[in-house]
């Protein structure tokens, strides 16, 4: 029995400076991505073979790439793609993962099936299967999102399932069951609000991973359509001229690193301040 007064369970979100820094970086990145069409000096797909591989200059602040496109412009537009990929995959994986996790956690005969499939997904090397899917299935945005999203499913499904199993035995859920609340409402009123914090945290990690995975697949030549200025595409193309035009690689890499770092920092901060592990107590 602890003598220290137990802290309130609904502490206000107290974020440490590192998390706030991460949020600020993310905010800047989102803002530049949203405003890219208006603030960037050139069009993201405007080619100019005569002005290829130019070093940073007054005309091209961060230089040009192998076909004369403005690196700064493309990096800014790249944010639109990478952040969208991260966000879409994060949301999609969260939705599908939560549904599967809830099914596994509440329907006994489905549990075995779903968890074996999840084990199977975990066993398969994500990058290789991702490349195979995109190439074999003819590429395209959807194949890419699926290839990135599926390997992220297991973590979400497992987390949701374990949360469902633990929340299910919480007295307040049993009280609601005794009060005649049916399963859908039970999930909506009691499960979702209490599992939301850890789920959002895992969602940020899924999103960060998706951004990295997109760049990896693009690097391997099977990512976004190459005309699109995703950071992965920029790095993949820039590496061909890495030693004479390193800006073509380092600029998108810097954006990519900053984004992933910021998302991870925010995720860490949220995790520490909501502490999913201590869901049961308080």
């Amino acid at each position: 029995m602890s003598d220290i007064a137990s802290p309130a369970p609904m502490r206000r979100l107290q974020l440490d400076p590192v998390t706030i820094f991460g949020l600020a970086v993310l905010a800047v990145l989102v803002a530049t991505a949203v405003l890219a069409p208006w603030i960037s000096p050139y069009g993201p797909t405007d080619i100019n073979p005569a002005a290829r591989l130019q070093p940073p200059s007054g005309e091209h602040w961060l230089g040009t790439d192998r076909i004369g496109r403005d690196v700064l412009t493309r990096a800014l537009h790249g944010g639109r793609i990478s952040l969208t990929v991260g966000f879409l995959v994060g949301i999609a994986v969260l939705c599908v993962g939560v549904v599967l996790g809830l099914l596994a956690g509440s329907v006994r005969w489905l549990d075995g099936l779903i968890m074996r499939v999840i084990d199977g997904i975990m066993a398969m090397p994500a990058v290789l299967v991702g490349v195979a899917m995109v190439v074999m299935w003819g590429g395209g945005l959807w194949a890419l999102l699926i290839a990135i999203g599926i390997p992220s499913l297991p973590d979400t499904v497992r987390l949701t399932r374990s949360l469902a199993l633990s929340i299910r035995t919480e007295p307040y859920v049993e009280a609601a069951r005794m009060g005649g609340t049916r399963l859908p409402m039970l999930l909506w009123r009691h499960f979702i609000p209490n599992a939301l914090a850890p789920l959002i945290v895992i969602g940020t990690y899924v999103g960060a991973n998706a951004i990295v995975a997109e760049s990896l697949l693009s690097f391997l030549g099977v990512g976004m359509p190459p005309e699109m200025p995703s950071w992965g595409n920029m790095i993949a193309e820039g590496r061909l001229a890495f030693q004479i035009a390193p800006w073509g690689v380092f600029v998108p890499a810097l954006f990519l690193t900053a984004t992933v770092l910021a998302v991870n920092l925010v995720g860490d901060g949220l995790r520490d301040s909501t502490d999913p592990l201590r869901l049961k107590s308080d």
Partner: protein
Amino acid sequence: MISFLLRRALATVPVIAIVMLAVFLVVHLGGSDPARIIAGDSAGAAEVETLREALGLNRPLPIQFLDWAGNTLRGDLGSSLFYGTPVVDMISVRIGPTIALAIGTLLFAVVLGVPMGTFAAVTAGRWPDKLLMGVASIGFSLPIFIVAYTLVYWLALVPGWFPVQGFTPPQTDFGQFLRGMTLPIITLGAFYMSLFARVSRAAVLDMLKEDFVRTARAKGATPLRVLTAHALRCAAVPIITIIGSSFAGLLGGVVVTETLFNIPGLGRLVTEAILKRDFPIIQGVILVTALIYIFVNMVVDMIYALLDPRIRQ
């Protein structure tokens, strides 16, 4: 204990079946046609058709699957459509460098990451913790190719300390093997080191809050003893878990490293096979990788059972 192991082994059967089906579907559902690629740029439709028939690609899919699955169970993964070589032989040639890279990376990451995380946990909230976790956060977020380029340029190409590419088998020249593996291992290991550091920190921090750690301190144990004999002993379970599950990521994640450093491993084999639609290789490598993962995680479970008497029951 034996019953625990048997149960654990039996549980992998449905997983393997699911993996086999999934691999086959990924490869065949896209409607790719390796025959056309083998035939070359200016081949005509008739030539492609005869080739397709010769390769057995015009049979119905379920038949092809049963055929493949049956042969696989007998240990025959078929032959490469392009090289004609048995896939098993190709994998056995390629698996060495990949395993060497994966194990080297794990060793590197564990040897650096776990102490890093433990030290951060012990100094939680103070500057060593913040410094180490800052390094880990960056290592966690850096794209692998940036690490590779930077290392190759500044440690290999310019000063010539390390070879820029290639793989020397250890039995040929162990020193050269180590020199050649250093950069790839650091490249791939930076991420895993950060991951293990983060997981170790969290695990040790959790364990330091446990009652039995307080008991140890009440016995008058030194902080080092509290940390090693008590906290780490229990934190080992989550740490080993993440090491085990990292293995799948590693076997897949070696692709980029293998490509950049020209290491003839499984990752490169399969990406090249994908670009050529060499179905048997793709199926074989992904299946073998999954089997290794399943096996490693079985071993991990056995280590749990050794570490934790509660699981043995």
